[in-house]
């Protein structure tokens, strides 16, 4: 979709104004903003949250290094593609994934099971869901989970404890499930909703009937399924977005061209945000173990994963940083698109109102450990929060020492940034970790 599409009246005030009229005080401000248009957005929370997850950690000494002050950090070769966004980033260096470290399984499995949910062994909803719970408004669908690479349900993103969600890798499938209904005449949507809501009630009745005939252990399991029927109703009754569907992506082998499919996903993300379908999107690189695409950077040596383990210097190849940098190039493309999209609900660009969390599984890729991770935040952390900074808590050179900060603190900060100041601490309480938000971030 071209950015200029957003100027064609696609995102009119209709839907949000409607929500504001029915949704209560929390929506009053955006409503007034949208009515009055040019008023400077009052200091407030970011409007949207985007989680970008890439596997296999990074090389901290080539990512960015701290300077004498938080503002004087140096961006390394991996972040070179993001040079133009230096003042839109906050890099948090040297925090641990404590929950990942105590999760079961090997380096990969435990990282998957404990990083984004910040609780051991997939013991809680992941941060995207926690933020969504706080900022969604009535009628918005649950977070949109996108993948670059194959469609997969890896378990990093969870709607609740032990409930992994699927990340969809086919842009066409995303469009079909997210935007197709926008192309259906309003009257057909209404008829279908009338039928499906009544049908859903009958299905609920089926669950209830079956339930009475089951032994107790089975009832509990059936009830967990039945509880999710509400999500069908949520989507059926979602307010119809007052915007146009983005251009339908062409069908193609999305696994064969990640640059293209990533850009399609970026466009779909922006469209979903712009239409206010959901305030939260996740983008996950699902083929992060041995991406064949990196083989050309590795002198034809296809085993990226072994390269990560071995650190660099293996076979004299400098390809690791080049591969990590490749992700940064894609990230820069995403930021560029967000920045080129006028904010539909206010002034500035969509990037100005979106918080982006760039997470990865490991601190030091070669060790596959979850200590001293480098996490990048981008876009905004709320009005008045300065960016263009690096906060460094431990020197990753001492990665076995353990950081006083964990991603639990970081996620607490994120919830605070989204206005949930009542949250004392998110997830796992490990020993030796202070509770509360990351000091100095917000």
């Amino acid at each position: 979709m071209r950015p200029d599409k957003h100027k064609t009246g696609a995102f009119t005030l209709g839907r949000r104004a409607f929500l504001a009229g029915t949704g209560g005080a929390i929506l009053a401000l955006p409503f007034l903003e949208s009515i009055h248009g040019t008023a400077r957005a009052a200091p407030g929370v970011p409007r949207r949250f985007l989680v970008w997850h890439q596997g296999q950690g990074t090389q901290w000494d080539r990512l960015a290094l701290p300077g004498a002050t938080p503002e004087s950090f140096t961006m390394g070769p991996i972040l070179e593609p993001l040079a133009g966004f230096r003042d839109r980033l906050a890099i948090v260096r040297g925090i641990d994934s404590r929950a990942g470290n105590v999760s079961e399984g090997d380096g990969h499995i435990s990282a998957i099971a404990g990083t984004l949910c910040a609780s051991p062994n997939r013991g809680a909803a992941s941060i995207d869901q926690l933020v969504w719970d706080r900022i969604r408004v009535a009628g918005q669908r649950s977070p949109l989970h996108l993948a670059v690479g194959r469609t997969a349900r890896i378990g990093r993103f969870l709607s609740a404890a032990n409930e992994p969600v699927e990340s969809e890798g086919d842009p066409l499938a995303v469009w079909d499930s997210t935007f197709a209904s926008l192309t259906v005449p309003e009257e057909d949507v209404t008829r279908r909703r009338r039928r499906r809501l009544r049908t859903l009630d009958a299905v609920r009745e089926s669950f209830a009937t079956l339930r009475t005939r089951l032994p107790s252990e089975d009832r509990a399991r059936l009830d967990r399924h039945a509880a999710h029927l509400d999500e069908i109703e949520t989507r059926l009754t979602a307010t119809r977005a007052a915007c146009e569907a983005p251009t339908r992506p062409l069908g193609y082998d999305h696994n064969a061209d990640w640059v293209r499919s990533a850009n399609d996903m970026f466009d779909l993300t922006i469209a979903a945000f712009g239409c206010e379908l959901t305030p939260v999107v996740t983008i996950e690189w699902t083929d992060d173990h041995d991406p064949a695409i990196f083989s050309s950077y590795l002198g034809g040596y296809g085993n990226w994963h072994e390269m990560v383990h071995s650190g660099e210097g293996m076979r004299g190849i400098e390809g690791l940083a080049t591969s990590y940098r490749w992700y940064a190039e894609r990230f820069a493309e995403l930021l560029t698109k967000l920045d080129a999209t006028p904010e539909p609900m206010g002034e500035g660009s969509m990037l100005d109102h979106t918080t982006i969390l760039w997470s990865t599984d490991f601190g030091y890729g070669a060790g596959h450990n979850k200590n001293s991770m480098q996490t990048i935040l981008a876009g905004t952390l709320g009005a008045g929060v300065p960016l263009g900074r690096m906060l460094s808590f431990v020197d990753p050179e001492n990665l076995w020492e353990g950081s006083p900060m964990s991603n639990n603190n970081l996620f607490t900060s994120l919830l605070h940034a989204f206005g949930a100041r009542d949250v004392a601490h998110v997830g796992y309480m490990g020993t030796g970790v202070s509770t509360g938000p990351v000091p100095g971030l917000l």
Partner: protein
Amino acid sequence: MAPLVPSSRRAALVSVLVALAGCVGDLDAGPLGSGGRGPVSPTEPTVCTDPAPGAAPLRRITETQWRATVEALFPGSTGGVAFPRTLYRRGYRTDAVLGEVSRDGSVAIGDASAAIAEAVVPADVSRLLGCTPTTDAADACLARYVEQFGARAFRRPLHAEERATFTALYADLVGDEALSVQEGVVGVVEAILASPQLHYLTTDVADSDGEVIHLPDHAIAERMSYLLWNEPPDETLRAAADEGRLSSREDIERETRRMVTDARTTRMISGFVEDWLELHRVRGMTKDPTAFPAWASGLAGSIQAEHEAFVTQVMNDDGRLHTLLAADFAVVDPRLAEIYGTGSGEGRVALGPERRGILNLSGFLAGHAGATEPAPVLRGVTVIRQVLCEDMELPVGLAVTSPPQDPTRTTRERFNAHRADPVCAGCHDRIDPIGFAFEDFDAVGEHRNRDENGLSVDATGRVRSVDGALDVRVDGGAEVADALAASPVVRSCFARQVFGYAEGRVLSRIASDAAIDNCAVSQIAAQFAESDGDIRELLVAITTSEAFRERRIER
């Protein structure tokens, strides 16, 4: 420069190649795992005086089974319809835990049911119903359709409350003047397709009491057909259930024997073996394009095609476990013929003495290998867990690292490091001697005497069960295959694996109620042994067992 990991770090050094188990869609670890620790004896109890049914959690049918179920109702209706993705647990797609429905999964099931119903109900509904319904709440035409269609969808006659739900829905829909009769019927079909009675194998305890119940005939019928054919019951089985002819052991044996000779059972066995040996790992795998150009030209596809063809050949030959594990033939296309060095022939070809059975085919060897070199730890662990049935889990808090690349040392020499550390040796002394014995096969399964660096390969090893009942020194993958194929330990383990598959559970020897399963398995394994390892007889032993026919319940 990246710093070195301090060698003083007191961390278990486990091969990175085990880390490959964290592949996409695999929920092996975490709270869903068995929680087992360390090696546990595979010995079956010798005395089993009181066989009792084990746990039998509510199970949701798999995607394959759902498609077969809906296709039986509306042929051609599920193509292109999305369904919640399959997850794997220790290789298995059938585990009941994986049948848990997520929020997105719930939406997918609802949307699929709506889309199918909209597509299959014609504007002239009489073409579907065989009669023309009125808009009357008590319409007889509609009531009859609900009765008949519901019974097919739910694999049993409907209860009165269920009939009432769907007829009331119809009345509600057509009572809305905005909606048509067609939309009323669409709603009924949609509701039945989305109801849990279609999606789950249930145990109805409403009309029984006591701790152990015999499953009703219709429940037996659906358990049999989804196990043996991955389909809902066919007309014969339905009739048997309707007429109360699935109650006795003899009844079930008769129907099982009819079914297991069918090609659908062969396909089921093929799918089981894929799960059992975790062969799905090959899908989406990458291999070094320089070292293995065949991979880029579609070897993974050849491997997947070979799998079903090979299992079919085994089942058509004698259907024995020994043949599956030690066959001296393969079923190849030109790509695999080149890997196996079998010459120009296609289809069934004789193998050289260096290669025997399914564990020496490319599916297992390439699937349990890295991009450039074999993964001895992964190969060894898979044999220990899946073929010897020994619980072995990764320790918590493990710092995974890998032996550095070194062209002057063989894989064996590099990996031997982890056995020097006593923390690691506990498991690796058992894993590595099995894994190293596959070293004569490279990362795509081609036989080799020299490795990728030109170093001479040492494929000696030792296949040993933890209790010592199996203990054979071997040299090369073919000897591993022969040793396993000849072992009663492996035969008993196979029975355990198929039984767990039938029950929708990954069995653990160290779970609190393991004794119950062990007892059931020992009886089934004894029958399997009597048949000299005939896989079809194993299926008969399972469906006729108390464990399959009964259920212990907590109300």
